[in-house]
């Protein structure tokens, strides 16, 4: 397992995500980097991993690169298609998703996410896509992986502009409610490093910095006093084989690898 001669930041992130999927059975993901990570995990560490799409497709075998979770090539040749009521009710809320992948405009210290607005909901500066399935995935997936495109105090603020998908820490502030079954965010992969939560009611801590990044740099770009793991390490660089798989077999048309 030799390190690749060259690799991009995107490849580093995808490979890091793939390594964390070694023991997950069912992954709920959107198209893009999460799908690449699942595909790579499938080809390297975890042949039994199964991808479930929000569109209701389970066990997709696309014959060409899918342009979305509901692309016709995702359906043709899939193992199953269920309706949204079964997907969100039975598959997801029923507890059959081990890992859910989510993106976010903002994440806080305990792994709550904002995908709704920047600014105030009544008069937003930027109207974001909203929940979609995110609030449902956060509450019900075994654990949640977040891939962030930015790592700065605006994306990791001390307080979110809006809590779309609440961490179990925030849910626990409402003890009169039945608590969500999910662990919440376990892993955040950013352009600077990897943050993880060890306890269901705990906070994120920095466990890995990417090659060439220091923990001080990460702290500086984070909007709260970021905890640093006792065994902080450097993110493992992609192997030559991983990069070959990504470029030559998984995303041959460079749709997502940039």
């Amino acid at each position, binding site marked *: 397992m030799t390190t690749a001669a060259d690799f991009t930041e995107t490849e580093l992130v995808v490979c890091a995500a793939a390594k964390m999927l070694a023991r997950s059975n069912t992954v709920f993901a959107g198209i893009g980097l999460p799908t690449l990570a699942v595909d790579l995990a499938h080809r390297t560490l975890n042949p039994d991993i199964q991808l479930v799409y929000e569109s209701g497709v389970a066990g997709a075998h696309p014959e060409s690169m899918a342009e979305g979770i509901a692309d016709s*090539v995702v359906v043709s040749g*899939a*193992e199953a298609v269920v309706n949204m009521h079964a997907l969100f009710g*039975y598959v997801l809320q029923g507890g059959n998703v081990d890992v859910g992948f989510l993106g976010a405009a903002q994440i806080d210290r305990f792994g709550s996410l904002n995908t709704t607005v920047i600014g105030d909901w009544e008069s937003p500066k930027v109207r974001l896509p909203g929940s979609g399935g995110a609030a449902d995935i956060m509450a019900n997936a075994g654990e949640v992986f977040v891939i962030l495109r930015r790592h700065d105090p605006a994306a990791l603020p001390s307080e979110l502009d809006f809590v779309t998908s609440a961490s179990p820490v925030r849910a626990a502030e409402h003890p009169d409610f039945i608590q969500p079954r999910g662990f919440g965010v376990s892993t955040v992969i950013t352009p600077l490093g990897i943050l993880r939560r060890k306890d269901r009611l705990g906070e994120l801590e920095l466990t890995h910095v990417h090659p060439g990044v220091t923990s001080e740099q990460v702290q500086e770009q984070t909007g709260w006093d970021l905890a640093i793991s006792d065994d902080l390490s450097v993110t493992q660089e992609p192997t030559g084989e991983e990069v070959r798989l990504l470029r030559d*077999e998984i995303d041959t048309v460079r749709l997502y690898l940039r």
Partner: protein
Amino acid sequence: MDSDTVVSLPHAVEKLVNPGDTIALEGFSHLIPFAAGHEIIRQGITGLTFCRMTPDLLSDMMIAAGGVDRLVCSFFASGSAGSLYEVRRRIESQDPAPLPVEEYSHHAMTLRYHAGAARLPFAPISSFVGSDMPGINPDIRAVVDPYTGKKIYVVPPLNPDVTIIHAQRADRKGNVQIWGIAGVQQEAVYAADKVIVTVEEIVDDEVVRADPNRTLIPAHAVDAVCVVPTGAHPSYVQGSYDRDNAFYREWTPISQDPAELREWIDTHIRGTKDHEEYLDAIGRDRIAALRMAPRPSGSVDYGRRPDASTERSSR
């Protein structure tokens, strides 16, 4: 699921069904998992809470065999076989022992599986206002609708330790395809902790994947797939064999006589090693006479992106 999913029925029952379990065997007239129920009787598993919307002959057998301590259901008769006499003896005269019963309507049982599958604490239902049923079942409760301030009844989730169903076919991973009457099978499967599916046949992955909408139960929900041809006898499998209506009619006198019923169980279930021997005991000619003539569904087109097949042929 990995390839360990495909196992023998005795192995699956031994591994996944434990004494004291709550088990659901579902199938509404169609695809009743009789062979699996028989195997539970053979293995002498006791203390079971048996869940089944329409108990049918299968519950008469399982209750008479002594393994069932509690019945959860919504109907106490067999459509064409009339009364289930073992069930009636247990309830009307505690003979040979009382049988505690949790009683619902069909929609309420369906919603119990639905709530169980969705891991919800309850499901609301429009039935029962003015009925005596909530009075004899403390688990039928009421909540206040926050939009109107009026009450509505709710039923609790049903989460079996094991759900068992029968199906036409599955692939080796456990993607299960069913056509004809599909009952509550999807809900009962997702509601369960563990799932056994007996099938008429295992087919190639490509057969399943040619028609993904036909997959009622995706592989991630299935723990064991067991190949048990004619595993639904005396019920039927759409497109494969018909219901053994004569068997249902013959059941009434058997069920009426406790000694005869127990002898039937000893001979046909305990006295046979497995389902193949059971079919021998029933008679292969009789089984053969149940075969259906073909009536094809026709094919629909899922389409493929032109030239797509070559693009990723390595996969």
